[in-house]
């Protein structure tokens, strides 16, 4: 039980860190970074660390809402382990059973799909150098294209797929083939397993919901990297698919928001340089080393104050004398932009750790200001507790 509790707290810290990173850098980093980070978090939540992670004081401070109440519960029930353990086990088994039954029911329906014979489809699938053979089928019971199966992946098209334009069909299939190449199906299984084990933890459900969105965003970006059709065509294809789902598939607020987010991100897509890729890779590697290795690495990690504070002082010290007199037009905003930009190459995996804030900063740095409002997705936790099945 205490192992689970350790995993819960360190997992919550990791999830909070990723949520912060996501709200700061979703636009700036290669979108593949975020599913990778969620995968690290999910594995961390599933594999008990051989060395127990010490709970850092900051972590407890950081998560008063989530950590506070259950912590007392465990403390008072320290001796009463059996019933608490039984409660957890019952919840985990129920969650797993619900997920599994739903998934099996879907798979039974998917199995009844009929094969498609279409030259364009075959050519596209062949153009994707995948080691696994992909079959494309039509299923009357799905309302939107989806992919399932890991070793023998299957792309399902809904009944009316013949009405797709050739371009739409190509984009849809490229999207699904990207899912297959990126191994998103097994990633979703792992995420679902983590959610079942940690059914009581709102942080984990936040992770589950965000990870699902990030998987789609990363996949969209992979499509845009390959296609020559351009952003607008892809965004329109996506909207077209949503339209064709028909009124029986209620587009709930959450679904609509996710689609809007995807369309926005697609339209903002730019080809990224090597720099952003390296920054993303560095973040993933850092989070891996920090959280996969246990106590030693955790303690040895210095708080990343030097670089940011240097930047901030440069930024802050100059404007102070000018404060009284109106600054020359243009200099200040420019400086602000300059100050904001360099944050990218020095991403630290710890923005969640409030280092003892360097006090003498007159101007609050821009990224920090962003952090507060945009880290807000957390309160969603309550609304997302009904998880979708993991197959698409």
């Amino acid at each position, binding site marked *: 039980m205490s192992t689970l509790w350790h995993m819960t707290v360190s997992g919550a810290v990791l999830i909070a860190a990723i949520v912060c990173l996501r709200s700061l850098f979703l636009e700036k980093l290669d979108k593949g970074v975020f599913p990778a980070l969620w995968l690290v978090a999910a594995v961390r939540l599933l594999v008990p660390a051989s060395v127990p992670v010490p709970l850092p004081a900051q972590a407890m401070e950081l998560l008063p809402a989530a950590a506070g109440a259950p912590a007392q519960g465990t403390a008072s029930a320290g001796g009463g382990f059996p019933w608490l353990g039984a409660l957890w086990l019952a919840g985990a088994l129920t969650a797993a059973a619900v997920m599994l039954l739903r998934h099996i029911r879907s798979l*039974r329906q998917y*199995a*009844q*799909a*009929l*094969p498609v014979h279409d030259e364009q489809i075959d050519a596209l699938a062949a153009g994707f150098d995948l080691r696994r053979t992909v*079959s494309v089928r*039509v299923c*009357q019971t799905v309302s939107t294209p989806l992919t399932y199966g890991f070793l023998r992946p299957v792309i399902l098209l809904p*009944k009316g797929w013949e009405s797709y334009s050739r371009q739409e069909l190509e984009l849809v299939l490229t999207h699904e083939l990207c899912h297959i190449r990126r191994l998103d199906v097994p990633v979703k299984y792992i995420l679902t397993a983590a959610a079942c084990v940690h059914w009581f933890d709102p942080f984990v459900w936040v992770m589950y919901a965000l990870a699902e969105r990030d998987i789609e965003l990363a996949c969209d970006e992979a499509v845009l990297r390959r296609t020559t059709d351009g952003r607008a065509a892809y965004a329109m294809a996506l909207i077209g698919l949503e339209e064709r789902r028909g009124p029986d598939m209620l587009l709930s607020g959450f679904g609509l928001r996710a689609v809007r987010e995807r369309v926005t991100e697609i339209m903002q897509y730019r080809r990224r340089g090597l720099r952003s890729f390296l920054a993303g890779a560095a973040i993933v590697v850092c989070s891996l080393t920090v959280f996969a290795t246990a106590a030693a690495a955790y303690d040895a990690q210095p708080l990343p104050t030097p670089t940011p504070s240097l930047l901030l002082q440069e930024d802050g010290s100059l404007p102070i004398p000018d404060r009284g007199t109106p600054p020359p037009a243009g200099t200040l905003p420019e400086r602000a932009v300059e100050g904001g930009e360099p944050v990218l190459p020095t991403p630290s995996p710890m923005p969640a750790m409030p280092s003892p804030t360097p006090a003498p900063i007159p101007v609050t740095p821009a990224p920090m200001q962003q952090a507060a409002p945009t880290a807000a997705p957390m309160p969603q936790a309550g609304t997302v507790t009904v998880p979708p099945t993991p197959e698409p």
Partner: protein
Amino acid sequence: MKLYDSELKVMEVLWDRGEASAKTIAQVLAEQVGWSKTTTYTVIKKCLDKGAAARTEPGFVCRPLVSRAEAQAYATDELVDKLYGGAADRLVASLLGRKRLTEEELDGLKKLVEELK
């Protein structure tokens, strides 16, 4: 009776053969559409439940209760209702408008018109 595409696949086998054991249907469809035996049996069961087919016990031999013509008529009615607002002439107009009818098909249609006169 509304039959899904998957159920129609099973019915096709029955219509082609008059009757067939579940095992035969499974073999045919495994080859044709790549279904597993379990999947085929699930779909056969649906056909039985809907009353589209019936089985006789020794050997689980199935025979169709609905004829191909009946199923086609139903599907056509549905199509006309859904896409052509219940007006069958618009369906015909749309078929003719596609100009992809062969001589043979046109002859068939002419014959039909003659018969219905």
